[in-house]
C-alpha cells in the first residue's frame, strides 16, 4: 500500500474486536473510535476522486449515514476500512454523475477559480517549498480531474489508495482485466498531461 506524503497523514488507530462488537450496538464511544479509524482516509479518497471539498463533504455525510444504518451488520472479524472505501468510492461515482455535480462543475467559485477547494496540500514549515508542492499538486489533481471517469477512479484507487486490481474490479463492477486496461490508459494520459512537470 502506498503511503502518500503529506502533513496530515497519520496511520488510523486500530479497532479491536470488542470495539467492533460495540459498534454493532451503536455504542457512541465505539462509533467515535470507528470514525477516527476511518475518516481521514475516506475524506482523502473522496476529495481526490471528486476534486472538490463541498462534494467530498456531501459524500462523507452520506457514507457515515450508511455506515450508521448498517452498523448492526458490521463484520467484527475484519477491518471495516476496505468496505468503507468501497462505499465511499461508489458514492463518489454517484455524485459525479448527479445533476448537482454537473451544475456545480459549470459554476466555479470566483474565489477559487480552480474550483478545487484549495488547501489540498498541507502548509509545511518552508513557505517556498509549500508553494512549489501546492502548485505541483494542483497540476496533478487537475490532470487527474481531466481524465474520463472510468480512468480517474481506477488510477486513484490504485495509486492513491493502494488497492489491487481485483479489489478495484469489485468496487467499479468490472473485470480485473478491464481495470488493468483502464489503469494503463489512465497513466498514459496522465503521463502526457504531466510531461512538463516530470519531464
Amino acid at each position, binding site marked *: 500500500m502506498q503511503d502518500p506524503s503529506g502533513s*496530515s497523514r497519520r496511520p488510523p488507530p486500530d479497532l479491536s474486536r470488542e470495539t467492533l462488537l460495540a459498534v454493532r450496538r451503536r455504542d457512541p464511544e465505539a*462509533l467515535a473510535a470507528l470514525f477516527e479509524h476511518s475518516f481521514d482516509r475516506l475524506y482523502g479518497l473522496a476529495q481526490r476522486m471528486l476534486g472538490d471539498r463541498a462534494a467530498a463533504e456531501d459524500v462523507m455525510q452520506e457514507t457515515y449515514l450508511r455506515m450508521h444504518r448498517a452498523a448492526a451488520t458490521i463484520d467484527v472479524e475484519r477491518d471495516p476500512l476496505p468496505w468503507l472505501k468501497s462505499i465511499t468510492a461508489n458514492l463518489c461515482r454517484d455524485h459525479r454523475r448527479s445533476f448537482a455535480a454537473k451544475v456545480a462543475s459549470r459554476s466555479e467559485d470566483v474565489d477559487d477559480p480552480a474550483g478545487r477547494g484549495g488547501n489540498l496540500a498541507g502548509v509545511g514549515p518552508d513557505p517556498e517549498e509549500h508553494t512549489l508542492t501546492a502548485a505541483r499538486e494542483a497540476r496533478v489533481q487537475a490532470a487527474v480531474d481531466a481524465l474520463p471517469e472510468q480512468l480517474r477512479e481506477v488510477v486513484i484507487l490504485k*495509486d492513491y489508495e493502494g488497492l489491487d486490481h481485483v479489489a478495484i474490479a469489485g468496487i467499479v463492477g468490472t473485470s480485473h482485466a478491464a481495470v488493468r486496461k483502464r489503469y494503463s490508459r489512465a497513466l498514459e494520459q496522465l503521463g502526457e498531461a504531466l510531461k512538463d512537470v516530470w519531464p
Partner: protein
Amino acid sequence: MSDRHDIPLTAAQRRAAEAVQSLSRPEADTDFRARLKADFASGAVAAAKPAAFATRPRPRFGFALWVPLTAAAALAAVMVFGGRLPGPEALGSHIAGTVLVDGRAVAAGDSLRLDELLRPGAEVVLSEGAELDILYPGSFVMRLASGTTITLPDRPRRWFGGDLDAVMPEGEISIRTGPDLAGRMLAVSTPEGRARIYGTLVSIFRNDELTCVCLYEGTAVMDDLEQELGPVPAGKRWVLFADGRDAELLDIAPPHLEHMEGLDRERCDCFGGAHKEQTP
C-alpha cells in the same frame, strides 16, 4: 505495492503513477469533521435524509444498450400502467397552525391552497398545533399530527398493483386504507425501520428515541433495518429503538389508540364505511 496483476509500465507511466502516489492526504474542515463525528457517534446522522445524488439508481449498461432498453420499458409501462388513481387531496383541519409543503407555508385550514401544493413526493411539515388529513381517494386517508414531517407517497397505479412509499423522519400519522389499496402495499419508512401496510387502520409514531407502529385492525408487517420482524397483531404495537436495542411487541398505548379512532370516526365516510369502536 505488489499486485500479481501488475502490468509493466513505461517510464512516463511510472512517473505518472508516482505523481498520483505523492499526492498529500487533504485535511477536512475541522468544524465539519467535529460535527460529523458528533452526529455519527450520537446517532443524529441517522435522522438525515439520504443525499439526492445517492438516491438515484446507478446505470449499469452502456449507452448503446440502455437506450433501446429504456425505450422498450417506457413503451411497456405506457401500455401496462397507463394510469394512476387520484391523490393526494387536503381534507383541511379545524386546528390553527402552519403547514409547509415543499418549503411553502400554508395555513392548516386553507385546504384550497393545500390542494394546489400537495403532490406525490411532496415534503409536508406540520408546525406545533397543526393537524392535517390527506386523502388519496379510494386508496387511503392519513391524519398527520402536529410536528410531523413526511414525504408523501406516489399515487397508486390504476392496474396491476404497485407499491407506495412514504418516508416519515418524525411525528405521528394514522392511516385508514380503502378498497383501491387491495393488491398493493403502502410502506412508511422511518430511520429505525419500515411498516408495510396492506389493508388496515394503523398509526406510526416516531421521535428521536424510537419508532412505534400500532395496529388497530387489518394487516401490517414490520421490518427493522436488517430484517422482517413479522406482522403487527391487532391491538399491539412494535417498538423499534434508535439506540439499537431489540424491538419490543407491546400493547397499544392510549394516545395512539385515540389518534387512530379519531381518524376513523371522522373520516369513515371517505370509503363508505362506518367507524367501529374497538377494545384492544
